């Protein structure tokens, strides 16, 4: 048996600008982060998510675009892209800062005792 796709779309038959996306095995982790990215998008008319039932690993993501030229699916794609960019940025900044911090540490004997609980303060 093939596993169900991790996301399905429930389109609005009358208007491609509106759609609800059903994510399987996702929760507030992705839902809220994606909601935040899309709410900042200038062409988002409405964006929200819900977890219809706590015992079902499902997350409903509602999206409505304000631009007739931009379908909900394309808008979601843009939101996903911007979230990807943001995480990529956090990742590279973290890696940079970690390297800077480790370089500033006084040399320790043995790599095992290396910065288990050392503070990194980025500022």
């Amino acid at each position, binding site marked *: 048996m093939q596993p169900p*796709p*991790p*996301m399905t*779309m429930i389109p609005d038959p009358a208007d491609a600008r509106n759609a609800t996306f059903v*994510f399987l095995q*996702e*929760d*507030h*982790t*992705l839902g*809220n*982060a994606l*909601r*935040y990215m899309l709410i900042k998008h200038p062409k988002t008319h409405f964006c929200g998510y819900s977890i219809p039932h706590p015992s079902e690993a499902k997350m409903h993501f509602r999206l409505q675009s304000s631009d007739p030229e931009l379908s909900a*699916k394309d808008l*979601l*794609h843009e939101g*996903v*892209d911007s*979230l*990807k960019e*943001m*995480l*990529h940025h*956090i*990742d590279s900044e*973290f*890696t940079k*800062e*970690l390297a800077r911090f480790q370089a500033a540490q006084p040399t320790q004997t043995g790599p095992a*005792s*290396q*910065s*288990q*609980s*050392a*503070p*990194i*303060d*980025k*500022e």
Partner: protein
Amino acid sequence: MTFSLEGTDASIANALRRVMIAETPTVAIHFVRIENNTSPLNDEMLSHRLGLIPIVYRGDVRQLNSNRDCDCQGNCARCSVEFELHVRNDGEDTIEVTSHDLRALSDMAVPLDDETLPRGILICKLGKFQEIRLTAIATKGVGKEHAKWSPVSTAVFQYEPSIRLNYRLLDELSPQDRQNFVGSCPARVFEIQDGRVVIPDVYRCTYTEECMRWAEQVGKPDLVTVKQLEPPRFRFSVETTGSLKPAEIVQSCLITIQEKIRKIEDLLVTKQEEQQLPQ
């Protein structure tokens, strides 16, 4: 480890925190085959305790197969690490069975060995002639299935407070009142150094607003304001169980979220192609 995150929103910070706790893979003992157990603990309790021992995997945990999806029958080196425990007390005195007695059958993983825990993690005590003999299989998993796989004991973030003191009004207070003002804060955010009120660490603030209430009571509501910094800055505090290093957890958590996003993106791309085909 502590680090700060800024230029974003609580939803992103919360995603990081949630993934660190619940979706960062580690290795933990999942199957136990008990051959002999005459210890005071029953088999289930013993197995549970074994599961909670942090296991340090010497390799990239993410590269390990999930035991459930591995194409082997039972378990193999690509999806698991085997351990052995055999202790028997032939002496008169009670002995301790600890994580040091857990012997890995491959060199890919070891039970947590930390200089702060020279005696290891206590599993059980054995009286005269009591014995434990078992093999245990550690597999990859994530914290949302069972907390034993969670690599963090603490993963929290805090909004950076913005505390503004009006020094002109503070100078008008008597030294006793200044002392009272400092004493009004239950989190001890303020201290007096050379007669001046200072804030050694803003993160001590727990937003009780007791200082503002005190200022209002003495008729000087502008003495102090406590707000969340705008735009927000978050200070993360990550403390591990020992199975991964804190920086590894943050990096692994970022990979997990990026993989989630890639999965959706792939789906969006293929969906578009499918729809274009019939035209």
